[in-house]
């Protein structure tokens, strides 16, 4: 156990070192946030009644998304792990008395958390000083906030477990680029990374909400902004738990299969 904690610590501290990157990230995310909000502003001004979320909810959604980008974006991957696999340095990981899946999972959590920690607060604080309609607001009640925190945590686990699959597939394909692009694009689209899920047609969301993608950023951000009522939120959280378990078990089975036929590249 202590080993995993140490892994977490070393990666977390390492991630906190990059201050310049954090400043740049804050600026970029603020700019993106503005862009999205202005874009929706145009849509909403033509026909506000047709929209599935009110503008206030949408603003909160977008600011949360920008602030916690590092936690929920599937394209936020650890290149070190890809290098490890495709260069064969995975050999060293394998001769340690540790579980590879758990170690990599922890590493990923640490990197994402350290990045999010540096970026999220400044973005949210700045965003709450925006003009009224566009600002980031506090949640309606403390229950909402508690549900939000739980859903955040679970959504984060689902995302990391999904990303683990991307790493594991690299064992089979030598070059990770293809699998990586496909899996990342699918997840980005169906998890509401480009467009919040309520904007999708109903016949699609019916299924998406049940999929692991619906269990990612969609749940916490919409709970926070009050777009999901309490009962629905509980259901969504249960689905999140289910998907976390399924994805982790699937990943563990897949990696133990991969390791049996692992070819250590480069002699």
């Amino acid at each position, binding site marked *: 156990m202590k080993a995993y904690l140490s892994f977490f610590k070393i990666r977390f501290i390492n991630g906190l070192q990059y201050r310049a990157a954090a400043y740049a990230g804050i600026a970029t995310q603020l700019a993106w946030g503005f862009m999205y909000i202005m874009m929706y502003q145009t849509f909403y001004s033509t026909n506000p009644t047709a929209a599935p979320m009110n503008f206030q909810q949408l603003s909160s959604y977008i600011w949360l998304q920008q602030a916690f980008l590092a936690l929920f974006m599937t394209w936020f991957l650890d290149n070190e792990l890809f290098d490890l696999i495709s260069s064969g340095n995975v050999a060293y990981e*394998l001769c340690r008395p540790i579980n590879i899946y758990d170690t990599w999972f922890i590493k990923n959590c640490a990197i994402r958390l350290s990045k999010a920690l540096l970026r999220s607060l400044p973005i949210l604080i700045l965003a709450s000083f925006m003009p009224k309609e566009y600002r980031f607001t506090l949640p309606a009640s403390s229950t909402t906030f508690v549900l939000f925190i739980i859903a955040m945590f679970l959504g984060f686990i689902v995302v990391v477990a999904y990303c683990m699959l991307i790493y594991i597939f690299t064992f089979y394909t030598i070059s990770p680029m293809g699998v990586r692009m496909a899996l990342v694009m699918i997840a980005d689209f169906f998890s509401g990374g480009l467009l919040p899920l309520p904007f999708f047609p109903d016949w699609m969301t019916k299924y998406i909400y049940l999929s692991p993608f619906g269990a990612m950023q969609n749940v916490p951000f919409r709970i926070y902004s009050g777009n999901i009522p309490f009962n629905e939120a509980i259901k969504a959280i249960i689905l999140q738990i289910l998907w976390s378990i399924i994805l982790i078990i699937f990943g563990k089975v897949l990696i133990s299969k991969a390791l049996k036929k*692992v070819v250590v590249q480069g002699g």
Partner: protein
Amino acid sequence: MIEMKEISKFFKVSKRNAGIGTAIKSFFKRDYEIINALSNVSFTINEGEMVGYIGPNGAGKSTTIKIMSGILYPDKGECVINGKVPWKDRISHVKDIGVVFGQRSQLWWDVPVVDSFELIKDIYSVPSEEYRKNFKTLTDMLNIGDIIKIPTRQLSLGQRMRCEIAASLLHNPKILFLDEPTIGLDAVSKIAVRDFIKNINKEKNTTVILTTHDTQDIEALTKRIILIGKGQVLLDGKLEDLKQKFNKERTVTVEYSGQINYLTEGLTIIEEHLGRAVISVDTEIITISKAIAFLADKIDVHDFSVDSVSADDVVLGLYKEFEI
């Protein structure tokens, strides 16, 4: 105690000829070739032994090491190391072994070496007391006290390799696998690394298995060598015995004045140039001392040297003999 019994390992390698046409064709239909990396490799290594595992490139040395350290699954055969099957009980097995791959790094690139050591301490859950003791001995013996505060990326190869070896021994492994530990090192670092390996073997009775292309490593370190070629164990024996085997022919170099008119049986001139001659001596016919006496009698010897058989000669001789 390491027991390898008829271990075999196959690799499937995709191959194609150069060119765009074949590249497109391979998009639809791949040609695979099954490469027999190891076939029926068997040997036993006892505790505290120091074994040199040699063979030309691609012979299967690294593959064997990887199987013994639990990284690769063999396709056939049995292997029991200290009562455990490496690939089945991977996690408990690797606690007792240390591995150094000369071409790879186990130290974290961006952090000072000492941080990597701390992490390794936690990974192997080494008790603090023991860690401090090992840390001190290792840093002293390998002379890395000053460099461990520097991030790995700024170390030279020789410095890094010494740190790598220290890192693989922090948890007191019973067995140490060294895959080309002296690759790319300068003479000073090589000697430091060799001395250290010898010491650790003597003091802690650590079993050391070493693959190398550097025949001086073998000479300095190992008593026993296992020769592998094309995935098979070709020879397993004492270095001394092998030397004897290739000892039949020695060469004597003499600087002299006078004339060598004729030579007794067993001596042949390989090279003769301006008062310097290289003469080969067949020790089955004539002993070295007799040969020298004979030469001293004929000519005025200013200087002479006898080449002893080096590990180089043994390895070269073996490669030739087995045509690998």
